């Protein structure tokens, strides 16, 4: 009897273990993400104000209806998409090129690596403040350099034509080391035998890259690009500190809009509606990514 009970108990323990392990993570997600998400969704259907969060009235889809005809909101979607596409493209390019560069051995490589990681280590607030000074119209380093080159002055943070570019440059400088580190780790995991085999087959460096390196690191590149995309959608501090959403709404992204509505105008319900739409966009991108990935995998399996 004791033996049977012991074996039964062991079987239950084995069955329960995965659920226990996943369970704690699930509880964490539910408590700290799921519940606030549902709260936010509920808030988006009310006219709640920041100062009196418990006194919001149910207004149905009124907030969403107003957003869909609000020029400033529609503009912020376009700005967010543009900012995301350009930031992700530039970051992936710069990060990958950096990773390839420091993957090779050369004198001072350790120092070079440390320097290249430095932007990632600097607090974002410090980065924003330093770039504010760099971009200053009259006393900034950027305009001094342009003046020396005979190009003339640019309103980096005061001209709407340059506002978004200025923010993108600061963002790419800050986050491309992360891409570099991830891509570098992936590069260093490519088996050397594959390179040797390619060499034996007479592959030149470009062929070696396209047939060995790229296929190996492609999953990593895709995952990093997805993360960069989602983070770009959510980026706040660099944009807010540099431009506050200006000049003339040139850098007014969805997240900046949420902040303005919630904290400048105290319209918590309206801000929640903007946030929900931003969340929906992120979810659409993520789901699209996984669908494309799944289809690619199925194709490869069939092949």
């Amino acid at each position: 009897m004791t033996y049977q009970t012991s074996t039964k108990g062991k079987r239950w323990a084995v069955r329960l273990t995965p659920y226990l392990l996943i369970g704690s993570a699930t509880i964490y997600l539910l408590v700290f993400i799921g519940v606030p998400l549902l709260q936010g969704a509920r808030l988006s259907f009310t006219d709640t104000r920041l100062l009196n969060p418990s006194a919001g009235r149910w207004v149905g889809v009124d907030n969403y209806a107003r957003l869909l005809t609000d020029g400033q909101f529609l503009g912020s979607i376009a700005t967010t998409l543009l900012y995301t596409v350009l930031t992700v493209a530039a970051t992936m390019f710069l990060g990958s090129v950096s990773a390839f560069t420091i993957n090779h051995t050369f004198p001072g490589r350790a120092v070079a690596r440390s320097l290249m990681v430095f932007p990632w280590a600097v607090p974002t607030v410090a980065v924003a403040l330093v770039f504010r000074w760099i971009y200053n119209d009259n006393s900034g380093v950027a305009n001094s350099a342009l003046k020396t080159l005979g190009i003339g002055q640019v309103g980096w943070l005061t001209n709407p034509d340059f506002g978004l570019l200025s923010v993108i440059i600061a963002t790419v400088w800050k986050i491309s080391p992360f891409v570099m580190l991830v891509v570098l780790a992936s590069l260093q995991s490519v088996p050397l035998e594959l390179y040797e085999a390619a060499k034996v087959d007479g592959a030149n460096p470009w062929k070696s890259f396209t047939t060995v390196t790229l296929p190996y690191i492609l999953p990593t590149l895709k995952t990093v690009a997805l993360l960069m995309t989602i983070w770009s959608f959510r980026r706040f501090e660099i944009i807010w500190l540099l431009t506050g959403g200006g000049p003339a709404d040139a850098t007014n992204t969805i997240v900046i809009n949420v902040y303005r509505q919630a904290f400048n105008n105290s319209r918590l319900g309206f801000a929640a509606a903007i946030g929900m739409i931003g969340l929906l966009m992120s979810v659409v991108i993520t789901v699209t990514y996984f669908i494309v990935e799944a289809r690619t995998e199925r194709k490869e399996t069939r092949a």
Partner: protein
Amino acid sequence: MRKRKFALVTATALAITALAGCGAEPAPTSSGPVTLTFATYHWLEKGRGDVMWKVIESYTKTHPNVTIEQVSYSRADYEKTLSTQIGSGKGPDLLHAPDPFFFELEDAGALVSLEDVLDDAGKASLTSENELYVVDGKPYAFVWETAGYGFFYDKRVLADHGITAPTTFEELVAAAKQLTAETGKPAIATRHLMNEESAWWNDHLAWIYGVGGDLSDGSNLTLNSPANIQAETYFKELYDSGAFAVGDDSATFREKFKQGAIPMLIDAAGTQVSLTKGNEIVPPESVGSSLIPFPSKGTQFIGGGLAINGNSAHVVEAKEFLRWMYSPEIQTQLAEGMFPSLVGTNIEVPKHLFTEFPWFQPIYEGLKSNPKPVVIRGFELKTPQVRTIFLTQIERVLTQDVDVTEALNEAQRQAEEVVRH
């Protein structure tokens, strides 16, 4: 069944406990030690905050069971931080509520009525600006400060370049252009950036009121009035003059003024104390001032009310503190620290301040000449939203050369849409 009963009893007990905390009457005066927290961003102002604090702290001499504790947040984060705290049922006991934040607080029912704080003599001593904080016949704050704005310049720099102090807008632009041509540096600065939105708004009303404009007639918005169009045309002209410190935020241009790198400012008077007191490069006696040299000489004042948080557990003690604070003796002491802003009662500004800071006289006269508030009359609650709309259009004028009339018409259209809801 047993489990369900237990859950029901527990839930009921919890509900009763929660409800017991709601609608509670203010706690009776405690004979034990009490700490009153007092929030204002002024505590962080060098040369002013510390002087004011010395006065406030002296309350404990006559009320040893009460400790006053400073709560300070930067100007940029002040309203947002307090909103979040008050919205979550907390926040300081006493708070300085700058316009238009006061109106948001009052509308949310977050403030305590101060009807019973002052006696008749005390009420008679209040300045007319206190009317701003009376809602439905009851005061919900008393004036903490009335801050003025002005045009400030380094007299020696102007004299060195043979320039007399401008008295008209045309003279102002000419002086700025001449200084820039001769020094190669920007000559004049004022706020103009969206990441200082609320402060920019406060500053910018000097232009609108200065030419006799206004943002409403009490019932309707008048953003695109001819006077406002004139004011914005002036602003655009100065911005494009080549002498304007484009891109400098207030921290930057104030530091430049302090270092003698920029000779003219259109700015809040309050900063002149911290910029010039003890400054060997630009001492107080070298600073000249006037109201902004516009036709009507109208000006604004930044009001700020001192109120009691409805979440406070020490309302009785907080009211006693206000009674003490608005007594003539304490107001006179506070006037030193509050300078160059005025306090909330009709006490005289200490004479020595006029001598020590000669630039104060025109600012004082401006504050006594019925200045207008920085909230839009009749649309106080909607001021933040209208402000964003208005300043975004001004940004378009400044940075994209959009026609002023077109921009203000668009601002009027968008703002009317907002106030309709």
